[in-house]
């Protein structure tokens, strides 16, 4: 089997397993929707208060917390059912496992965003940002890749420790602050003022650089993270 075929096989296994039970996706989507409602009540201090400049932050905080839930869940199943041991016994390059796992997590995050973004727009955004959809999708995708790559690497480490899911947020959150800063700034500008590709270029390039650096770093270290 070539690397590409192995990649597809692992990704397919993850997707099928999730589509059969759907427990992870359903909980993540419910969590994201609930978080929006909670945000609405938490920030309703004064009638007519303007939340426009908080919208980007609300969106990304929700996605990051939802992703933490999903990452923990995806590796807990692997570990509990000894699926990972089986995977490691196969003659598969560890990097292929990393890339397939990252792609799987990215697909789940994108599915959640496909549900969450329209609802979020309906709830919180008054301005139409239809003209800025292209930069919006670029920012969304680039930030997602960064979060999923680092998240997959660190979830692999944390599931092998004593505290398991408790450890992941402590490791992951300080590391993805740069993504949060760039993505929040960009989405807020799009929601509040309408910003084109030109204005967001430095942020987009920054996210691209972040993804490239950490994909390479995770590529180089995943062998050690996943263990024998």
């Amino acid at each position: 089997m070539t690397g590409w075929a192995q990649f597809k096989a692992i990704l397919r296994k993850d997707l099928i397993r999730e589509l059969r039970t759907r427990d992870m996706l359903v909980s993540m989507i419910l969590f994201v929707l609930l978080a929006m409602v909670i945000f609405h009540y938490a920030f309703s201090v004064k009638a007519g208060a303007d939340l426009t400049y908080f919208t980007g932050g609300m969106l990304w905080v929700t996605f990051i917390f939802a992703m933490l839930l999903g990452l923990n869940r995806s590796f807990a199943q692997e570990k509990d059912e000894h699926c990972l041991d089986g995977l490691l016994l196969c003659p598969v390059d560890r990097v292929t496992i990393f890339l397939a796992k990252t792609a799987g997590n990215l697909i789940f995050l994108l599915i959640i965003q496909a549900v969450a973004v329209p609802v979020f727009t309906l709830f919180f955004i008054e301005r139409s940002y239809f003209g800025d959809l292209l930069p919006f999708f670029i920012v969304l995708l680039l930030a997602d890749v960064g979060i999923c790559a680092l998240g997959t690497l660190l979830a692999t480490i944390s599931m092998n420790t004593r505290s398991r899911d408790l450890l992941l947020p402590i490791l992951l959150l300080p590391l993805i602050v740069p993504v949060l800063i760039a993505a929040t700034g960009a989405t807020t500008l799009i929601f509040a003022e309408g910003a084109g590709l030109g204005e967001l270029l430095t942020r987009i390039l920054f996210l691209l650089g972040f993804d490239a650096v950490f994909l390479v770093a995770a590529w180089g270290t995943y062998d050690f993270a996943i263990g024998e």
Partner: protein
Amino acid sequence: MKKLLSAPALFAGAGICLIAGLLLAFWWAPADASSMGFSQKIFYYHAPIAEVALLAFGVAFAAAIAYLRTQNLKWDRLGLVSIRIGLLFSILVMLTGMIWGKAAWDAWWAWEPRLTTFLLVCFLYAAYWVLRSVVDEDQRRATYAAVFAIIAFIDVPITFFATRFLPEGLHPVVIQAGDSGMESSMLVSFLISMLGMTLLLVALIRRDLEIEELKDRVTDLKTSLGG
């Protein structure tokens, strides 16, 4: 030569340089001409501590790569010790930075790029500590710690760069490329403090390494005695 590099000799050298740097800073270097005035004196300690903290994390980064290549636990000890001292220095950076902030901006805390970066550095390396504490097996703990130390060190400059996207900062840019921006008496005092702080770092790493080695030997002896 070996004696000169022993921990006590390094501590003595660090002490002499740090005291000399402090005396020179207060009695030789002039008060700063800018609006910072006398409060600028903390710069002779604050900046060297910051640079030495980053140096310590750099050592840990190199040690992590060396560990992953060799699987030799001595590199893990070096990483552990450097990060412990680097974390301590980072907390000192924040404390001295807050004192300066109070004098210069009349606020104990400002969400300013460098201060914010160091706050995140503290969280990152505190997480390193939590990670170490929840893995029981030696080799596995060392491997995870090394992977995290590499990722964390790469993240530090990226975080600093990202904070540039936030609204304007307050921190003065003291040393710019091409122009040191300081009088020679200030520069000499600063460099002596810098040397002192670096010597202190090396001395602390050496001493802590010896302690960690002794700890490991005690554990080995206990195991071989059946306890």
